């Protein structure tokens, strides 16, 4: 059976759910080897954290260059593993870091690349939703190792316990990859809320909040949701740009998307219309977002959301 590589995805010392999602997709193609890139001395601990999903093997590469040189060093090490193992495919999480790593590995290994896949088939055909989710595309890599980045939250992860064999590999990191140096790194500021692109539920606010996100945040926190914002809200300085959902912001595809006071310009729709269920709260009955809502409430979000928060809290007991 052929080997398929995934790049294990971490948040701090924890393997993310995305790692299991990548493994689930990769297992359709072949036997899954997860590559764990770790600081010197931490390989065993990080490998032990990769404990969910159909993973038969873990390849640990230790180097302090990953932290001090970032994407370029990671790509060099990963390209080394690809050249060594000649896998049937390489799957990487489709976030900024993952896509840049994939881009460099594609150049280094002379391989084709597909980004933002929402599904991957046994023959490594990738499914993408393009043009703001209005078109489904199936693509295949025709050169080298298919390098596919997979959007978090797109694949139902097999979360069964993994007990993979562990092997160590050495890092081959070129001088070129060390040209940029990271002086300091800070993890993202987390207010206890999930990451926008990985969240199962997203509650977003727009112009209708008039700058007051308290009702949106209260509802989000009760649901365990991430908070998003429309471009109008981020441009107004009401919410950080990192939370912007839409064409020039994040693309999200949660189980539930609740849009509050967002009219639904095409740019916003492009970032959320592949959500499984869409709920819209807006004073304006003509708001275009109602056209794609599974459930809409025409009303003031400052009345509707607190009541919904109380009612959901009651139902949850």
């Amino acid at each position, binding site marked *: 059976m052929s080997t398929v590589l995934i790049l294990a995805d971490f948040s701090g010392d924890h393997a993310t759910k995305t790692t299991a999602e990548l493994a689930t997709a990769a297992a359709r193609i072949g036997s899954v080897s997860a590559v764990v890139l770790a600081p010197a001395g931490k390989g065993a601990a990080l490998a032990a954290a990769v404990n969910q999903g159909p993973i038969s093997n873990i390849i640990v590469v230790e180097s302090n260059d990953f932290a001090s040189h970032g994407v*370029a060093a990671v790509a060099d090490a990963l390209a080394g593993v690809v050249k060594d193992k000649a896998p049937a495919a390489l799957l990487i999480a489709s976030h900024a870091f993952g896509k840049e790593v994939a881009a460099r590995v594609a150049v280094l290994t002379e391989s084709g*690349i597909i980004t933002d896949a929402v599904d991957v088939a046994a023959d490594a055909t990738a499914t993408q939703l393009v043009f703001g989710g209005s078109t489904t595309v199936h693509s295949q890599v025709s050169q080298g190792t298919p390098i596919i980045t997979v959007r978090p939250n797109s694949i139902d992860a097999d979360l069964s316990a993994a007990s993979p064999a562990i092997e160590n590999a050495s890092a081959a990191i070129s001088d070129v990859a060390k040209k940029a140096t990271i002086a300091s790194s800070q993890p993202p500021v987390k207010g206890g809320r999930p990451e926008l692109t990985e969240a199962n539920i997203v509650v977003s606010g727009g112009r209708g909040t008039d700058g007051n996100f308290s009702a949106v945040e209260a509802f989000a926190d009760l649901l365990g949701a991430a908070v998003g914002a429309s471009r109008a809200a981020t441009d107004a300085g009401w919410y950080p740009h990192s939370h912007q959902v839409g064409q020039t912001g994040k693309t999200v595809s949660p189980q539930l998307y609740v849009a509050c006071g967002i009219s639904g310009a095409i740019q916003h729709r492009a970032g959320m219309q592949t959500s499984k269920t869409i709920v819209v709260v807006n004073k304006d009955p003509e708001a275009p977002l109602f056209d794609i809502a599974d459930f809409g*409430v025409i009303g003031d979000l400052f009345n509707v959301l607190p009541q919904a928060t109380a009612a959901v809290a009651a139902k949850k007991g």
Partner: protein
Amino acid sequence: MKIAVCVKQVPDSWAEKKMVGGVLDRENVDAVLNDLDEYAVEEALRIAEAHGGNEEGGPHTVTVISMGPERATEAVRKALSMGANDAILVSDAALAGSDALATSAVLAKVISDGGYDIVICGTESTDARMSVVPAMLSARLGWAQLTFASKVVVDSSGKVSITRVTEAGVDEMSAAFPVVVSVVEKINEPRYPSFKGIMAAKKKTIEQKDLAAVGVAAQSAWSQVKDATPRPPRAAGLKVNDEGSGGEALATFLAEKKLI
């Protein structure tokens, strides 16, 4: 200091996009300068201005580099009207439908032949949205990669420091010339071309090159679209008027859908 800015002409993000024969139909759609590239042009001009400006004949220049059909001169002209000095546009029928790898190979050759110190890109184009070309350029050129910058500072010794902002956090990074930089949206407020700038841009040189002039061979795309299907539009569901119990109706809907 020689600064290059990579820009792309893209279909207007308001326009309806279609696939024809496995590639995006770029012919029958309004085309504009990629929104996110305007931040790159602006940042290039600001870096030049911080070191005395990019007046003709001066030591600092900002060159716009693009690959695309000949009509991409419109997008290039917009970047020139913002204040860039000159431009190179690579157009060749053999490049139609090329992928990011081929694009980066062509751009890298133009950049390495131009002797630039800094290349600045937007983080992605609003059509393909791959976010991979800056990293590919860095890998191909063997230059330092300073991407997703929300702040760029270039000192007189040729050291470039950036603040990198992604969902993974915030990094302070630096490297010496030559470097590939990509800038995030909102790093700056791109200037509107002035009337004077628009008039001046008409006289600026856009050097048009085909692949032979660039000196690279045509490379076919390394990934292929097998099929593209428009998704059925989402149908509108239930819509209720809030007459005092809209929030409760919403909670009931979520409970029925087992979303809470």
